[in-house]
């Protein structure tokens, strides 16, 4: 830092390589994608018009949004329960809990998707157990549909929901809870009126993280959807590689980027994003 507290030119030179790298290998290609979306098959906004006129484009957008919303809600509910339990657990148990949350994160998403197929298919563990127990006579359709996709995605997203909420819950002063109890609040009241409002920044952070992650999900829906349920990412790859409709594919890719930016902008109005993602403080 210079005397005035402003970064000197030397500091800027330090980040220059990273900046160039981003420009050439990240920003550049994204601009190219944007360019193709307005030039193929003919110059103009014809591809974007399809959002309003093409039933199949609308369907893939709606399917994606529906699956993402359901996934986000379920992951938040499950994640909140886990984060709450961890916060209140003894320090020894806490370590084990956090390990249990992190281990799935380290397992390849591909392996996890196939594991779910093994569990959920017609002659899978779940259906076989239920049939042998006499609960059902015909196997339930648990996979190759939206249900299967949501199971796989929620499983993937729960750790991403737990971690920001846990961080925010740890900042809650336990003495506040004790004080509320001392002032005559019931356990339920303490949770609803003290703990829940104080953990709100964590919930919002988890919400942003899980929702944005879900939007671009590719492998899990491709495997568990059985080819019948298409989400945006798989739809884009289909347009580019198989149908050679590059204009349409890049249009959707651009829309995806804008959807993510829009989500971030909206949430940044409500919460301090820099704090959520760990910078600043």
């Amino acid at each position: 830092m210079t005397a005035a507290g402003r970064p000197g030119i030397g500091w800027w030179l330090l980040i220059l390589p990273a900046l160039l790298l981003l420009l050439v290998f990240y920003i550049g290609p994204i601009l190219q994608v944007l360019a193709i979306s307005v030039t193929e098959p003919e110059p103009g906004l014809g591809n974007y018009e399809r959002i309003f006129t093409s039933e199949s484009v609308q369907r893939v957008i709606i399917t994606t949004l529906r699956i993402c919303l359901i996934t986000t809600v379920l992951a938040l509910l499950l994640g909140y329960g886990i984060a709450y339990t961890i916060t209140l657990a003894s320090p020894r148990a806490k370590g084990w809990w956090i390990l249990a949350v992190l281990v799935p994160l380290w397992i390849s998403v591909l392996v996890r998707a196939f594991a779910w197929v093994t569990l959920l298919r017609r002659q899978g563990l779940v259906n076989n157990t239920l049939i042998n127990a006499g609960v059902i006579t015909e196997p339930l359709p648990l996979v190759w549909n939206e249900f299967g996709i949501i199971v796989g995605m929620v499983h993937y997203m729960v750790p991403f929901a737990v971690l920001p909420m846990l961080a925010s819950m740890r900042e809650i002063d336990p003495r506040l809870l004790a004080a509320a109890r001392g002032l005559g609040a019931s356990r339920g009241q303490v949770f609803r009126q003290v703990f829940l409002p104080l953990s709100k920044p964590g919930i919002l952070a988890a919400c942003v993280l899980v929702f944005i992650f879900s939007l671009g999900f590719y492998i899990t829906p491709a495997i568990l959807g059985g080819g019948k349920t298409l989400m945006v990412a798989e739809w884009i790859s289909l347009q580019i590689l198989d149908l050679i409709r590059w204009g349409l594919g890049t249009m959707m890719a651009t829309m995806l980027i804008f959807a993510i930016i829009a989500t971030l902008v909206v949430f940044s109005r409500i919460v301090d994003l820099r704090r959520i993602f760990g910078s600043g403080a």
Partner: protein
Amino acid sequence: MQSFQQDCVDLAFRRHRRGEVDRRTLLAGLAALGAGVFGGSEALAQAARQLVMVNWGGVANQGFGNFYGAPFVAANPGWTVAQDSTGPSAGRIRSMVESGRVTWDLCDSSATSSYLLGGLNLLSRIDYAIVNRENVIGPTFALDHGAAPYSFSNVLVYDSSKFPTAPTGWADFWDLQKFPGTRLLRRDAAGTLDAAQISLGKDMANLYPLDVRASLARVREIRRNLVFWTGGAESEQFIRTGEAVMGQIWHTRAKVLEQESNGRFKFIWNQGILQPGIFVIPRGNPGGEMAQRLLASMLANPEPQVELLKFLGNGPTNPRAAALVPEEFKRFNPTEPANARVQVAQNGRWWGENYARVNADYIDMVTG
């Protein structure tokens, strides 16, 4: 979407891992698929000129062999054939030729793509003064913009333990009353709609042009009872694990199912959709006319084609090959005269002209 060639390479490696074939046979098989480096390292070091053949099998580039390559390399000293496993999809060939920097000589493609790309003037015409038309069994194997050293078929496979009577064709495939259970189709219009059209009772000799609207509606009829595959291994898995009781899959996978289940899973040739494994030459390829000579040599030698049939099941296209096929392999050869007679040769020209539009509609219907 996995192509047929990619799947063959997968199968080859699986058989090698299980110890069913030795390393030598594996490499020879990969080379026959166009997925090895021909000529050997010594020749490669000396070579000033090489042809680049493009295939779909990544790991295969490590392999060395000389099934198809040896006759060509022997006849053309100083030339070698290198392999590139980028996967020559129609989109990639298009962007390469349009950019004007062509590095590929011979690409493992399809009849549909050859018409699609040929129509856009992105391919060299096959020079039938060099490539001998007499070396293939039928006109669908020697096209204007490509020729086929092997063939494959989309056949009906079924779980014989589920049905008292065996299905005999696509009409049975669509008959959910008589043959109840989940069906398996490829998430690709080509092959699927041909079968749908046959199931509607259209004469197989005059199958094309397909009635797209009626065929799509036909698939939609059984949509609730359908699952879809995109890769060969996946198609095998769906049948093996009982997710589907009847399906349309590549005959190479159907053969594996039938043999490994001791006949519980069976497949029929009747009304199979017979397709050529077409190789194409991108316009402005660096090797020029030599690519035509390589293709000619691949078509002219029946022995390696028969070896490939024994190894994986790809059908030979050379008319002299059928006589060389041992009895026990005839059952699995799509171009065996008795098998070829009951199949329908897919019309690559019609599909080339209609594929992009029809497949988009098909996928919309499937995911709708």
